[in-house]
């Protein structure tokens, strides 16, 4: 193995490490945080649309029912999350990966 090969291998390793470090410290947590925020906002939207799924009468559910064909998977997942969620701390704490 020539010197140049060894240097390239070393640099490749370093690159992989640095990328991993960047991904682990910056990229992934920020992506996760924003996406979680997006999910939370989406949940608020779903709740405003379909509050009657939880027994709260909603004056617009007649109109929002029209959205269901486009929202099916989101809706089912959302309903499950809303029934199952244990506490806000549990969800907000997820990002720390204990």
């Amino acid at each position, binding site marked *: 193995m020539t010197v140049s090969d060894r240097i390239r291998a070393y640099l490749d390793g370093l690159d992989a490490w640095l990328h991993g470090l960047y991904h682990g410290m910056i990229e992934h947590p920020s992506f996760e945080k924003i996406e979680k925020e997006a999910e939370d906002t989406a949940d608020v*939207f779903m709740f405003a649309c379909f509050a009657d799924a939880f027994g709260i009468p909603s004056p617009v559910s007649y109109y929002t029912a029209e959205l269901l064909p486009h929202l099916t998977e989101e809706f089912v997942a959302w309903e499950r999350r809303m029934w199952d969620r244990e506490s806000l701390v549990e969800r907000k704490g997820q990002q720390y990966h204990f």
Partner: protein
Amino acid sequence: MNKFVFFGGKGGVGKTTVSSAYGLRCAAEGMRTLLVSTDPAHSTSDVFDQQFDDDPAAVGGYENLWAMELDPDEEVKRHMQSIKSSMTDQVSPAIVNEIDRQIELAHRTPGAYEAALFDRFIDVMRDSEAYDRVIFDTSPTGGTLRLLALPEFLESWIERLAAKREESVDLFEKAAVGDKSARRKLEQDPILERLAERKADFEFAGETLREAAMFYLVLNPDELSIEESHRAVADLTDAGLTVGGLIVNKVAPAPDDGESGTGATYLRERHRTEQQRLERIRGEFTQPVAGVIEQRVSEVKGDLLAEVADDLVIDTEATAPTI
């Protein structure tokens, strides 16, 4: 000149009689007139002795006159069916069952009936090029007022929903850090598109009601319906709608001077009180009294309509709303 004329008021004051009579008068004057009953307990069919349904039908025996009775139950069913069928086109059957419950729920809430009726209102107003005048015989005050206040309320609600949706989709786009692709995209989001369509509907309804519609309240010369009319005028004005005037129906006629039996005395007494109330109405409301209709001995309906109609037309002609 207002194309859409609404007659509202407390239950049993004679809205159907007044709107039918007004419809006859408009038709007689050569205007192509559509009479729309929105009261769940339809009585237009009884007045004209002809069965009407959800589509405009020519009224037998009269020229230029069409009538229809809105059926919100039909509309609710149709709405539910269309959602369900677009579901089966797009989604796997396993999930459809879970969603079905929500769809049924949404169509069984009390608001569904009003929303459906409101949709039909919009349809009728949109498809009204064929008519010179559309007369709405509405349901008793409370229901109608709530209905007519809907556009503004729904518009702002839909706006807020759309804003929330936009916020979340925007965040999903931002979450696409590095080489990840966004889970949802702002452009061609079917939800936002649907909400925008709805919003346009509500805007159209609100604009039409505020700018091309005139409201008349029918009342009887009694305390209860005067009080209710006060509230109705306030609510309608608050919603930015124009109240053109009041029509006092079922006013007792005065007996002839020579008469003095028990019946005549009762009638004279009654006539006197009602004239006082009529004065009160003229004094208390800023809206003009656009018509005073005397009480008929028999119900204005069925075969009798033919006999009374001429009389009624003259009657309303002398005192009809001037628009």
